[in-house]
């Protein structure tokens, strides 16, 4: 094994071009577990910790460009206003020690269906900026990023540089089911974001399908129901029948399996419960109540 320590982003891309099998390591909270347990013996490890731009973020007019290695602890402390859903999700990641090291780039790189950031990213809407030495940078829409269980749209010579996430223009929520607050891999998780400017609602479901997914049929139903009832303008309470149907459709979007953390039928049920609750919380907040980004974890 070789341990490569590029000092700049350009050097890192050159290393990845020369050794496409090289495994990037930033927070190490996934990679080191695999190495410690002898599940993985990469030929090359590429340490990204020296590349300071990966630890930075820029708040633009419409989006936040979040460096791949910005640790969860900083997202939850410093980007709560711009990225409330992701901040809530970050707060549910493992423990303080893990949140101090891990970041969204690693979550996307691992592309686990249970990655905590994914439902929030799907709901907020974002593009993943990846780059290779040969072809330069490209933006992958989050909807096209997850291609299979622990698989993503990254080419072998590419590295994840940042995520361009839409700034919240309305309330967002995140909910996660597990046996305790800390140190759990989600049994299942749900993210929701209201986008009042486009009068749409987006969702994200974690740990309930081979990849993180959106509940698109549920979104379409809810968007139509909210439009039809004039809810965005009159700010009325969403009727229980609409909330119930939305929850059923979210539940139906899930395609879970039985495993050690929970059964498929429990996951389907829990996704529906989380969908109904988080819709309630965000809508109350939209109507001017004070729920805001409070709520979970």
């Amino acid at each position: 094994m070789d341990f490569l320590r590029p000092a700049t982003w350009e050097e890192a891309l050159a290393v990845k071009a020369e050794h496409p099998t090289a495994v990037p390591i930033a927070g190490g909270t996934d990679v080191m577990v695999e190495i410690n347990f002898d599940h993985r013996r990469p030929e090359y490890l590429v340490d990204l910790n020296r590349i300071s731009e990966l630890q930075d973020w820029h708040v633009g007019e419409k989006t936040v460009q979040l460096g791949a290695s910005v640790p969860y602890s900083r997202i939850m402390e410093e980007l709560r206003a711009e990225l409330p859903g992701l901040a809530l999700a970050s707060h549910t990641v493992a423990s303080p020690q893990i949140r101090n090291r891990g970041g969204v780039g690693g979550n996307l790189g691992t592309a686990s269906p249970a990655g905590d950031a994914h439902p929030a990213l799907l709901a907020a809407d974002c593009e993943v900026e990846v780059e290779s030495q040969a072809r330069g940078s490209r933006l992958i829409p989050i909807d096209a990023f997850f291609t299979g269980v622990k698989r993503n749209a990254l080419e072998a010579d590419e590295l994840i540089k940042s995520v361009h996430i839409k700034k919240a223009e309305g309330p967002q929520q995140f909910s996660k089911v597990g046996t305790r607050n800390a140190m759990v891999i989600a049994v299942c998780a749900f993210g929701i974001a209201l986008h009042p400017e486009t009068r749409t609602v987006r969702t994200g479901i974690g740990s309930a399908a081979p990849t993180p997914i959106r509940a698109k049929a549920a979104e379409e139903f809810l968007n139509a129901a909210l439009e039809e009832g004039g809810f965005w303008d009159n700010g009325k309470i969403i009727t229980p029948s609409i909330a119930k149907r939305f929850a059923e459709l979210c539940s139906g979007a899930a395609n879970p399996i039985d495993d050690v953390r929970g059964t498929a039928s429990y996951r389907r049920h829990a996704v529906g419960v989380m969908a109904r609750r988080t819709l309630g919380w965000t809508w109350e907040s939209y109507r001017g109540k004070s729920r805001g980004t409070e709520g979970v974890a």
Partner: protein
Amino acid sequence: MRVHFTVNGRPQEADDVWEGESLLYVLRERMGLPGSKNACEQGECGSCTVRLDGVPVCACLVAAGQAEGRDVVTVEGLADFAKQRAEHGSCATGASGGSGVSGACGSGQGTSGTSGTSLQDAQHWRAEGTDSQTGEGTGLAPIQQAFIDAGAVQCGFCTPGLLVAADELLERNDSPSDADIREALSGNLCRCTGYETILDAVRLAAARQGEVV
């Protein structure tokens, strides 16, 4: 490969480090500092918690090469680290932000021997003084003394990680609520105490810290 980094305020190096080796392995097996405990090797238990540039991390999940040039504080250096902090004000290294800049807490100040804890001292560090039961007369960090006084130690395996995590909490928050304490220690597992005495110890240390100021 060879790696160099600062441990408890003194520059150290380790040779023949395997490229996939963890910081924890280097500390324990190459530098002879077994205070940081090796249990789960997957970041679940927190018993290997150390400060990396001031930030609490699981040493088992940091590749040794990632520590190159950086500043590590282990439980063996905690007493001195707390002492330096008390003497020089709140100068901890990058308390909550991970700024990566070492402060003036006796870290990275070369080889003068007046600051930090040498490898030999750290290897022989023991909580023994005139009275080995109460820790009296020893150079303990306030959080260590509080753990003894509150009876927060049973088998002791989780204690080093908890001490490092709790000390960092009290560094950035002088009067933590119970919720703050629970959250700060949520990454550290203890299978003996049921945690109540550990919470007592952190409250005790916080109260004593308040009295001093």
